[in-house]
C-alpha cells in the first residue's frame, strides 16, 4: 500500500490527519499535508482508505 499526495491540490483541510494521524500530518506554514508513512503497514489499510476518502479535494491517492 502506497499513499501519494497531490501537493498542487492539497488545500489543508486536515481531514486526512483527523482521520489517520498515524499516517498524515499538516505543515501549518505551507498549508500542505505531510505523509508520515508513504508505505503504511497493512493493518492501517482501513483507516488510510477512510482518510483518502475524507479528503474534500481528492488530493490523496492510494496505490496497491
Amino acid at each position, binding site marked *: 500500500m502506497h499513499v501519494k499526495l497531490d501537493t498542487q491540490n492539497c488545500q*489543508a*483541510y*486536515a*481531514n486526512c*490527519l*483527523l482521520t489517520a*494521524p498515524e499516517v498524515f*500530518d*499538516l505543515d*501549518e506554514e505551507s498549508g500542505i499535508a505531510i505523509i508520515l508513512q508513504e508505505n503504511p503497514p497493512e493493518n492501517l489499510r*482501513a*483507516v488510510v*482508505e*477512510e482518510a483518502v*476518502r*475524507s479528503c*474534500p479535494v*481528492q488530493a490523496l491517492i492510494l496505490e496497491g
Partner: protein
Amino acid sequence: MDSVVVVGASLAGLRAVEALRGEGYDGRIVVIGDEVHPPYDRPPLSKGLLTGATDLSAVTLRQRPDLAVEWRLGERAVALHAADREVLLDGGRRVPYDGLVVATGATARRLPAVPEGLAGVITLRTLDDAITLRRELAGRPSVVILGGGFIGTEVASSCRTLGLDVTLVTADPLLARALGPLSAGAAARAADHGVTVVHPATVTEVRGHDRVQEVVLGDGRTLPADVLVVAVGAVPATGWLRDSGASLDNGLICDAGLGVVGLPGVVAAGDVARWPHPAFGGAPLRLEHWTNAAEQAVIAARRLLHGTAAGPCAPVPSFWSDQFGIRLQGVGLPALADETRVIEGDPAGDRFVAEFFRTGELVGAVVAGAPRALLAYRRRLTHPQRVPAL
C-alpha cells in the same frame, strides 16, 4: 441480497456504493438520481466555482472504475412501496430492491415572500443553480443575499472576491448556529471585506416585473437588487417517501445504526437522515455537512449488509467553511453550547481557537487557521461506541 437500489446520486449515494463494493457485495446496484450530472461535489458551488478559482470539470467526484453500477441519472423517485420492495419512478417504472439506500439529501428552502420563477432570484443547491448564479454575477449586478448561514456568507465572500456590491440580510446573527457568541467576529470580518450586513431583518416582499428589482424589508426599507440569492437553509428531500410508512420529522427517522425505522431493508445516509447520535445526549440529529454524508454512507452500507451487528453511527460531526480568506473548521456540536471560551487568537481575525461547553462538558470546538488544533478536540469528542468506518 442480490439487488441494492440507491436513491440520490450525490456524495452519500456514491460513498454508499463504494462501501458496498468495499465490503464485498457483488450483486446488482442501481443508482437513481434526478440530476443529470454524475455525482459531484457541492462545497465549491458557493466558493471556487463562483469566483472562477475552481473549474467546472473539477467538481465531479472521482469514481473508482470498477464499481459496476447501473446509473439512472435524470430519473426521479416519486414513491416507495415498501411492502413490495419497489421504488416507483416518475413515468411509472418500478425498480425492485432487496436493499434500499435513501440518499436524497436536501433541497434549498423557499420563502413565501419570494416569488418563484422571477428572474434574478436564485437558491443555491445544485450545479445548475451555481451555473445560473455564475452567469448572473458575470453581469456585475448588485447582489442581495438573504440568510446568514454558511452558504449565505460564502456567497457574500465570493461576490466580494469578484468586486461586486453585496448586502447580506439576516434574521439571526451571522453564522449564529455554528459560532454562537463568536458570531460578532464573523460579522466584523464580513464588514471588513466590504459586505453590508443588515441584521436583524427579514424580507417581506420582492418587487420586479420581468426580473427582481428591489427587496422590501420588514421595517419598510427597500434595497435595490439585480440578483437576490435566497440562502435560508435546506429541507430534507423526503417528499417521495410521504406514503411509504416511514416516519418523517425534519428528516427520515432512523435508528442508531441508520436503519430506517419501520421499513425493513431500508437504510439512509447524508443530509436526509435523522438519527439518535449516542453522544450528545442521544438527541436525534440531522447534519448537513460533507464529512457526515461521507461517513454515514459507509455505516449505512454496512448496516444493509450486516444488520445491527454493524453497530451505531457515532461519528464526531465536523465541518468547514471557506470565507473572506479564512477557513473556519469545527468539530462537535457548538450549537448545543451554553458557554464559549476563546483560548487563542481573535474570532474576528485570521487565527483563533474556541471551545464550546454545555453544563461544563466539551461539546465542540471551532478554529480558524489552526487545523491541527482540531485533532485533540476530535479525540476528546470521540464517542466510545464509534466504530471506525470500513
